[in-house]
């Protein structure tokens, strides 16, 4: 039997959903900053990133929905799935904490998301490639914005340095997961639809190390990785996030809004 060149519908659905969930959960986190930013200009900046992410999530959910075996739409996927059905990375569901925690989470994700999307633009699946081509420009700005803040907080005052260092330490257990490929990732890679996650790691590490050094921050060592997001094993933070996000459509199902 020769290797199938096209993914199964189920695989493509699940793979697309993973990427959608990442954008959606991180967007929801940034939404929680509305009217709470450290400066009004930054409120606008964080919302711009959030708007890019919700745009990506919608394109990806719409594509996932078209692959599902019964009629669903983007809202069903976002509002009617239970936490264990979500397949986002654990990193993006971590709480906002203070501004340093938000920036640490954002930068670590952006520095992964950008090369991920760059690879995805070459996907054999033309829809995924097209969504990636649009998103890649957005991610390029995101990484610029978040790295600007890592430098300022790391190399700012004593207080900000300590907070930024603590924040980096706090997100570090969730980094390894970004580079672990499971069977689905492997299948999608073999037919040139998906991204080679392991290949992203060395570039990520050298880029992040350079920025941390520039920001006078140190890279945590000997950190035990926490994984499970892609398999629906989440930290408790996702429950709270979804409880709030899904409350209204779940309390009044089958309504138009």
């Amino acid at each position, binding site marked *: 039997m020769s290797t199938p060149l096209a993914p199964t519908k189920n695989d493509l659905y699940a793979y697309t959903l993973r990427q959608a969930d990442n954008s959606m959960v991180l967007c*929801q986190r940034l*939404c*929680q900053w*509305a*009217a*709470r*930013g*450290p*400066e*009004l*200009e*930054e*409120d*606008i900046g964080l*919302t*711009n990133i*959030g*708007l890019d992410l*919700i*745009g990506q*999530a*919608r394109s990806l*959910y719409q594509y996932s929905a078209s692959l599902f075996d019964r009629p669903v739409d*983007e*809202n069903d996927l*976002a*509002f009617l799935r239970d936490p264990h059905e979500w397949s986002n990375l654990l990193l993006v569901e971590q709480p906002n904490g*203070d*501004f340093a925690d938000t920036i640490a989470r954002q930068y670590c994700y952006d520095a992964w998301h950008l090369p991920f999307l760059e690879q995805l633009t070459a996907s054999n699946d033309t829809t995924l490639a097209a969504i990636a081509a649009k998103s890649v420009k957005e991610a390029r700005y995101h990484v610029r914005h978040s790295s600007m803040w890592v*430098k*300022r*907080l790391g*190399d*700012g*005052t004593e*207080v*900000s340095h300590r*907070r930024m260092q603590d924040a980096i330490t706090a997100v570090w257990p969730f980094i390894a997961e970004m580079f672990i490929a499971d069977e689905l990732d492997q299948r999608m890679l073999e037919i040139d639809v998906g991204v080679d996650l392991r290949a992203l790691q060395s570039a990520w590490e050298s880029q992040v190390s350079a920025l941390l050094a520039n920001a006078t921050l140190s890279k945590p060592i000997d950190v035990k990785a926490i994984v499970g997001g892609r398999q629906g094993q989440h930290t408790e933070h996702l429950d709270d996030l979804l409880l*709030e*996000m899904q*409350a*209204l*459509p779940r309390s*009044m199902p089958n*309504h*138009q*809004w």
Partner: protein
Amino acid sequence: MTVTENSPTLSENEVKFEELLAMGAKIEPRDWMPDDYRKTLIRQIGQHAHSEIIGMQPEGNWITRAPSLKRKAILMSKVQDEAGHGLYLYSAAETLGADRTDMLEKLNNGKMKYSSIFNYPTPCWADMGAIGWLVDGAAICNQVPLCRTSYGPYARAMVRICKEESFHQRQGYEIMLTLSNGSAKQKQMAQDALNRWWWPAIMMFGPRDDQSPNSELSLKWKIKLFSNDELRQKFVDIAVPQANILGLTIPDKDLSWNEKTGHYTYGEPDWEEFFEVIRGNGPCNKERVSNRREAHENGQWVRDAAIAYAKKHAEAALSKAA
């Protein structure tokens, strides 16, 4: 050379100023202007800016709970616009010598006011519809004439704001329309929201003309171009047919069409409540200001860090250049 040539007397300045106003020319930042003109503008633009910033909260509360992805994206960009509009307005006020940091401090310690409308709670999703339709609708009635206000930077900020805000009212009305055409429960949500927001929106135009202490001078200086009651009438005339299309009932038993005037006659709002909210006793006054203060205080270390970083790196660049 006489002294008056170098330093014109006050009256000469005043004459020039009045001439510019009479010509319909704009007053620009470095022109001479009466102290009270400057003060009135700083107060008005500052309050307007603060209203945009505080106004982010009642809607910001629903961003995380918006019931569809489309509505979430729309609400995010609307609340973001409000931050932007606040900044355009602070920017205009700063051309008059006011300082944004000072103005925000005065907002945080209650020395400067913002529109009372934002002291009402938003317990229900339909409030997002009512705010867009009625509050933004009333704001547009107020703001469109301000695009021609006499102070240049304020007028230019208003042009930009009005252009961007045109979607705000439409998205609110669309929410109301969807709810009104939805289930019985949804329609009831829409009616409840209308009941709660109608009178506060009516009062957004300020006290009746015979009770409005600042209006006369503002009209003379062309800061304001229409009186409170004129603008309020305009709003009512526009809103009533819009409510009819929604199939909702405006909670005013005195509301009727007056054939003779060609306008709607409307009832008297509860001004006692209005002044209570202005005095700080509205349902959400304390919460709104304390949220704002908290955001500011929690951000202090971030701003300090950015300033320290900028200073360090500017010094490094200087020593490199030397």
